[in-house]
């Protein structure tokens, strides 16, 4: 028997319904983001509490409050003259007949009739809407204030680009780890993670606690760690599967265009890059840096002295990056692709090079080449009409996404292309960012599922919720999330928006829950070998 909260007293489809609380239900036990079920006459509606307010039957009651120090008076007035109201936005509905039950919950097109009873959702309700843990669905957390497993269809999730947002310290990284594990276990997709802060590969940090295990520690056979900074990885005791080095000759003009802001280049300097590339060919960076002045420029190149200096200064910054070499002997892209083809997830650690220049440059370069490979393979596969030739779905995880996807560069970076083309070439993005307002609105609108932790900047909230139905209601939910370990998920992979508490990550028990027991035992056996 579920606890009845109250009855529907008014509302509209656009604005949601008003629910008057029963006197037995305390308004202080309510919380925005809670999942409720409304028992209509013929249908059941599922929705979320999006606002909580107080009402009085007589305005004079608020002008001359009664003597509530007397518990009797307070008890009599509670729920009668003074009452709580909930604002609920229904998102899904399920009919009462057998056909409708088979069909499952559908988006709402109407609202429950007057005085329909509103209850807190039960485990069955949540399972009906979000499904139970199975080979496709992954347990990501509990709906707020509920002990029910909220499951996410990972197969569906990876079909679109997705975003994880939240200001720093709200648990984006933990949430990402959980999702990465989910994708690893429940979907065909492989992940390529550009791990700026060395959080995902071997071990991650935790505020005020011991480090937590990374993916490699939990799923050693299915995760490969590449590093840009071998020495740093060794210091941290990470066993790496490869070192990524980048040659000057691998850097193309588009890569520089992307770095315009971080390298403080002028527009003319970016233009000049194209000219220089055409003239000097692959070796253009070395050749450009060797120039002593504008007068040494080859015939036919008209580049202003100041522009050249500006460009040279920028290129020198790139050259100073320790993982950049005049010529890189091994092909990082090929090595990474081999792992991905085998179904191994790849985490690229940046070691000490947390500088945004390095991150943008490397992430963009590698992704572009990998994407090109995917593109040609997909085209071949569709030309041959063979499903088997299609490469595995790939999810590229990037942090600080607003640096790649801001309106100025989104058109130029590979990430902008991937986000817009969606899954045409079996490559999608998992974008992690704390300033979603910095991301191009076109890219934002293409994201399938968004998971957002607390955001407090209005522009960020607006940009995350742009184009979502019932955004005003969601806004109030989002703004009231706890500073840690609470998130709101909405979009393609979930039937309705829901606020949830991500499952635990970091305790011994949580690792055992993530890794099926059989594997864990094997790991222990390996230790003895």
């Amino acid at each position, binding site marked *: 028997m579920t606890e009845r909260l109250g009855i529907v007293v008014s509302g509209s489809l656009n604005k949601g319904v008003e629910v008057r609380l029963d006197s037995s239900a305390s308004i202080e036990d309510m919380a925005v983001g809670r999942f409720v079920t409304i028992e209509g006459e013929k249908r059941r509606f599922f929705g979320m509490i999006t606002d909580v307010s107080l009402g009085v039957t*007589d305005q004079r*009651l608020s002008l*001359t409050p*009664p003597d509530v120090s007397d518990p*009797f*008076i307070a008890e*009599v007035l509670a729920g*009668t*003259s003074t009452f709580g109201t909930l604002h609920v936005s229904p998102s899904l509905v399920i009919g009462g007949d057998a056909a409708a039950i088979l069909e499952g919950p559908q988006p709402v097109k109407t609202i429950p009739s007057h005085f329909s009873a509103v209850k807190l959702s039960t485990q069955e309700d949540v399972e009906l809407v979000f499904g139970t843990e199975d080979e496709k669905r992954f347990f990501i957390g509990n709906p707020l204030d509920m002990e029910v497993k909220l499951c996410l269809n990972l197969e569906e999730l990876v079909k679109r680009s997705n975003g994880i947002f939240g200001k720093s310290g709200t648990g984006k990284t933990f949430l990402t780890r959980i999702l990465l594990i989910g994708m690893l276990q429940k979907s065909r997709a492989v992940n390529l993670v550009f791990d700026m802060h060395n959080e995902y590969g071997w071990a991650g940090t935790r505020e005020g606690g011991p480090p937590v295990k990374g993916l490699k520690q939990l799923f050693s056979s299915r995760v490969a760690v590449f590093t840009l900074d071998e020495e740093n990885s060794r210091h941290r005791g990470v066993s790496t599967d490869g070192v990524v080095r980048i040659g000057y000759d691998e850097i193309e003009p588009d890569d520089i265009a992307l770095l315009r802001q971080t390298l403080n280049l002028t527009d003319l300097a970016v233009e000049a890059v194209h000219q220089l590339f055409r003239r000097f060919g692959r070796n253009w960076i070395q050749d450009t840096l060797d120039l002593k002045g504008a007068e040494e420029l080859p015939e036919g190149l008209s580049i202003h002295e100041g522009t050249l200096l500006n460009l040279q200064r920028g290129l020198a910054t790139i050259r100073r990056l320790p993982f950049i070499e005049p010529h890189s002997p091994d092909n990082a892209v090929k090595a990474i692709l081999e792992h991905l083809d085998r179904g191994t997830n790849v985490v690229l650690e940046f070691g000490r090079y947390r500088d945004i220049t390095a991150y943008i440059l490397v992430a963009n370069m590698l992704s572009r080449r990998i994407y090109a490979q995917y593109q040609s393979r997909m085209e071949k596969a569709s030309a041959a009409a063979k499903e088997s030739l299609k490469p595995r779905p790939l999810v590229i995880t990037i942090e600080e996404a607003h640096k790649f996807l801001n309106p100025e560069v989104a058109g130029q970076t590979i990430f902008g292309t991937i986000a817009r083309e969606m899954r045409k070439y079996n490559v999608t993005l998992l974008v992690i960012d704390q300033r979603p307002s910095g991301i191009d609105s076109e890219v934002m609108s293409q994201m399938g599922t968004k998971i957002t932790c607390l955001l407090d900047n209005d522009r960020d909230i607006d940009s995350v919720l742009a184009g979502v139905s019932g955004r005003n209601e969601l806004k109030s939910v989002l703004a009231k999330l706890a500073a840690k370990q609470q998130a709101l998920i909405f979009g393609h992979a979930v039937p309705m928006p829901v606020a949830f508490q991500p499952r635990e990550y970091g305790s011994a028990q949580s690792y055992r829950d993530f890794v099926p027991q059989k594997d864990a035992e094997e790991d222990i056996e390996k230790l003895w070998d």
Partner: protein
Amino acid sequence: MAEVQRVGEVIEASTTGFTAQCYELYQMPPLGSMVKTGDSSAELYGIVCNAATTSLEPGRRPIARGKDEDSEEAIYRSSPQLAKLLRSEFEALVVGHREGDRLYQRLPPQPARIHGFVYQCPPDEVKDFGKSFDFLNIILNAHLPVPTEELVAASLRRMSQAHDDQRAFLVAAGKELAILLSGNLNQLNAILGRIKL
């Protein structure tokens, strides 16, 4: 059935109420208490809403007699005729009736009969009657010789004594009143102030 106390006899009756005279001087039931009249097939329930002790003859007012007496009792002892010259009577507001086994909290089809005996309701019956609060509406809408708030409060206080959990009964009644009097906050406050324990 428990011994029920007979408190008087109907001397005036209408659809909304009846007046009964007590057999003994000053033996009227308390304000707000429940009384009933009628036979077992149709009983009327009333709530005592007013009581008075007056001279038997309307034109003849009692005179002060105690100047040389030590106590009030002594006055009655020295003038035993007083008990016969004065009379106590009370008015009851009809709040419900019983037909067979069913209890209705609404006005009866017929008023009480003159000379019908009036009994004090036993606690079990009061408790049974208190299961519904529809009678509150009758009291609130009646033209009463005493302030409505006073009568509502008195009847609820009396009724609560028949219940094991007095507080729960009063809270439930209070909530009903809060709904009935949602437009009249002052009256609600006045009643709540009078019924709190």
